[in-house]
């Protein structure tokens, strides 16, 4: 498989065409914007977080196939996970797309492993990680408020 076919695997092309969880969330409690000023990619991410668990996640974006597909796949894998699990997934995903994953580790990434081809295109790492950065921002956004005693 050429580097290009490795980058644009069918799963990625399919998620780009029909992204999952692509909607505005009416009753979420977290929201973050992701943008890449160098290329103009923009993304809005919504979360419904309850007791440290991502109950629901959705997004809308204008961007390339890699960033849209990455956002779409991310929403499918983090739904139902705890914040800590999402962080841990991001860590592995980041190492996947930057080519720093240990041998055998990619199997633990499940569907996200389709992004392995990104590591051959360093400039696209930002595209693939844009939704993840937005997710981490959303998770961190209101942390202080959550920790404050309810009034």
């Amino acid at each position: 498989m050429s580097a290009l076919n490795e980058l644009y695997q069918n799963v990625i092309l399919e998620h780009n065409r029909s992204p999952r969880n692509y909607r505005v969330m009416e009753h979420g409690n977290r929201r973050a914007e992701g943008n890449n000023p160098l290329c103009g990619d923009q993304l809005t991410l919504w979360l419904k977080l309850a007791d440290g668990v991502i109950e629901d996640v959705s997004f809308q974006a204008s961007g390339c196939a890699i960033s849209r597909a990455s956002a779409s796949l991310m929403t499918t894998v983090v739904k139902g996970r705890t914040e800590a699990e999402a962080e841990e997934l991001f860590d592995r995903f980041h190492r996947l797309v930057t080519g720093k994953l240990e041998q055998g580790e990619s199997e633990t990434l499940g569907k996200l492993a389709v992004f392995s081809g990104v590591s051959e295109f360093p400039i696209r790492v930002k595209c693939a990680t844009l939704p993840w950065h937005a997710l981490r921002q959303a998770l961190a956004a209101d942390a202080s408020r959550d920790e404050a005693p309810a009034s």
Partner: protein
Amino acid sequence: MTVRGAEGPGRGTLPPRAVPAEHPAPLPARLTAPAPAWRSDFPILSTTVRGKPLVYLDNAATSQKPRQVIDAISAFYAGANANIHRGVYDLSERATGAFEEVRLKTARLIAAESAEEIVFTGGTTSAINLVAQSWGRSTLRPGDEVLVTGMEHHSNLVPWQMLCEQTGAVLRVVPVTGTGELDLDAFDRLLSERTRIFALVHLSNVLGTINPVGELVARAREAGAVTVVDGAQSAPHLPVDVQALGCDFFAFSGHKLFGPTGVGVLYGRAALLERMPPWQGGGSMIATVGPEHSTYAAPPARFEAGTPPIAEVIGLGAAIDYVQQIGLPAISVWEHELLARATELVAEVPGVRVVGAPARRASVLSFTVDGVHPHDVSAVLDDEGIAVRAGHHCAQPLMARLGLPATVRASFAFYNLLEEAEALACGLRRVREVFAA
């Protein structure tokens, strides 16, 4: 370097185009595919990318360098390197002489009245910032207006925004029409006796639009404004005569003109440069320095504080020699033919939309592919060895006006071939296949 005869490959079927009226330099007979004669001077053009011959179509970002430029820089470091304007020894005197000779060559390239009107800067960006911070900051008062256009590169917009914040002046913007041209009626409405500075781009880096600079500059000067022309894109592609254009300042970069990065040029009308305070202080720009006060050197030295990019200026000189040997009139005629053919070929690909339709255009072709983001277009083209730019091209206000987050931009130089335009169209068909768009 000679221009090939009338027989040759790639003869287009397009009607002859009118020569841009602002560039009355004599033109040679119509050219046909002369590029191969020049290509062998550019070592990088015979390299491969991802296993395919490089098709370099990102000339608006930076141009490739001929061996003559690479060799000139190398020879300077190997045999003539010294700091300039200070050493009382042969090597320094030779370096100074070579450096100052390039000032004269640059003046001739753009038809400046004298070499003293040429200031070497770090690039177009620093040239424009120099005008804003020296002329602009010392003359603007609250309520004065700076007029720019809606198709400026950020480098001819942000310095004026900063200046307005610093001085209380007001920024006005000439809008862009649906075809990607300046709205001239709006220009007339916006121009007033409050307009102190009018800054505009000569050739748009996004749409390739050639603006009617001479006409607009004349009206702006009549209104009492100082005029600044961003020539970063025009200098490598069109014959430029600053006296015919009538502008007060004209800025361009060495690296887009087949020279090295790190050097640019600010042309300034002598009468204005003489009245301008220095922008940056340091060595070389002074007349006398006392503990509390200094007096400043005459232009252009006043604006060249510190050790200049000496080797880069030498490289720029070699680039100017190279370009002058071919001749900018010949270059602009060939590129015009190439761009017209490329536009046809690209527009024939289903789903491809060319952005903008200005009456006068050079070098640059922006387009979108339905259902495929420009970055993905660029990635597929890259797999074919084709280098294009995808993004907002440092012109976000223009992109907003066009209603596009990004475009794909192919930009041509005189060494590009018709075959490369064909490769681009072919690559775009593959984009459609990959994305089943």
